[in-house]
């Protein structure tokens, strides 16, 4: 088991992990998700975590007390997730529920109804337009909330600014 206390290295590993996940998504033909993962996971969140590191310490404080309860909760949750994974349909299986319900209609009729070759776009923006409106609202309110917590709405005093 590898344990890192240098948080800078942890952030970098996180970015590499995201980039590898993006490559995995490309391999699974989910290019839209791969775009997002590469730009958000490897790019922006790495920058934000580095900006946070600049405000705090770059080394994790060593924890002497072992937390038995936390370990137990993690183990139980992990076991539940693994046992749920057993029931998942095989990847790409035609009879999987995700491919059975409305998907045939989207794949067969969306070009005639929407006229957009990319089915992902027509599902996301047209068939599921309500969901996407909700998602955009969530992004907006989440950004607003983070900025409120950080207190970023206030203009800094003019002499407090420094260049670069």
């Amino acid at each position, binding site marked *: 088991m590898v344990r890192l206390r240098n948080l800078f290295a942890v952030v970098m590993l996180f970015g590499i992990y995201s980039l590898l996940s993006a490559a995995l998504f490309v391999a699974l033909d989910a290019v839209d998700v791969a775009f*997002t993962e590469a730009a958000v996971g490897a790019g922006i969140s790495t920058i934000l975590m580095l900006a946070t590191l600049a405000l705090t310490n770059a080394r994790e404080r060593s924890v002497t007390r072992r937390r038995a309860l936390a370990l137990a909760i993690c183990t139980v949750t992990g076991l539940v997730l693994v046992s749920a994974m057993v029931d998942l349909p095989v990847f790409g299986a035609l009879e999987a529920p995700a491919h059975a319900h409305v998907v045939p209609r989207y794949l067969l009729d969306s070009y005639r*109804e929407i006229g957009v070759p990319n089915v992902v776009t027509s599902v996301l923006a047209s068939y599921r337009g*309500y969901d996407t*409106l909700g998602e955009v609202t969530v992004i907006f309110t989440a950004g607003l909330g983070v900025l409120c917590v950080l207190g970023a709405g206030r203009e800094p005093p003019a002499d407090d600014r420094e260049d670069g």
Partner: protein
Amino acid sequence: MEHHLVLRVAAKLLIPPILLFALYVQFHGDFGPGGGFQAGVIFGAGCILYGVVFGVDNLQRVVPAGVVRVLSAAGVLLYAGVGVWSLLSGGNYLDYGVLAADRVHGQHLGIMLVELGVGTTVSAVMIGLFYGFTSLRP
């Protein structure tokens, strides 16, 4: 980062293609992979790269914090506004088919507009978060 010459030159070369690629992903999302979310984060990442390498103050000159705040709300308003427009045109909320003379053309128009709204909000929120984190002093 004034002394990192390689970084500055590489960033200068990379930022225009990143922004152009974001616009391509935005407006070609109907035909290829991509769409508003992806274009928004790519555009935001390009701007943030500029801010990281050339300083937040230079980025603030290009995209002032007030503009970012207005744009992040304007994207949601544009999306919801398309819904209201389709209501006023006699259809259901967010039913883009009624926006133009024939349904397929209306769907195209509606999808392009809502994707533009998504991209605007996402990129503005990303840049706004960057401003929020960098405005803090330890």
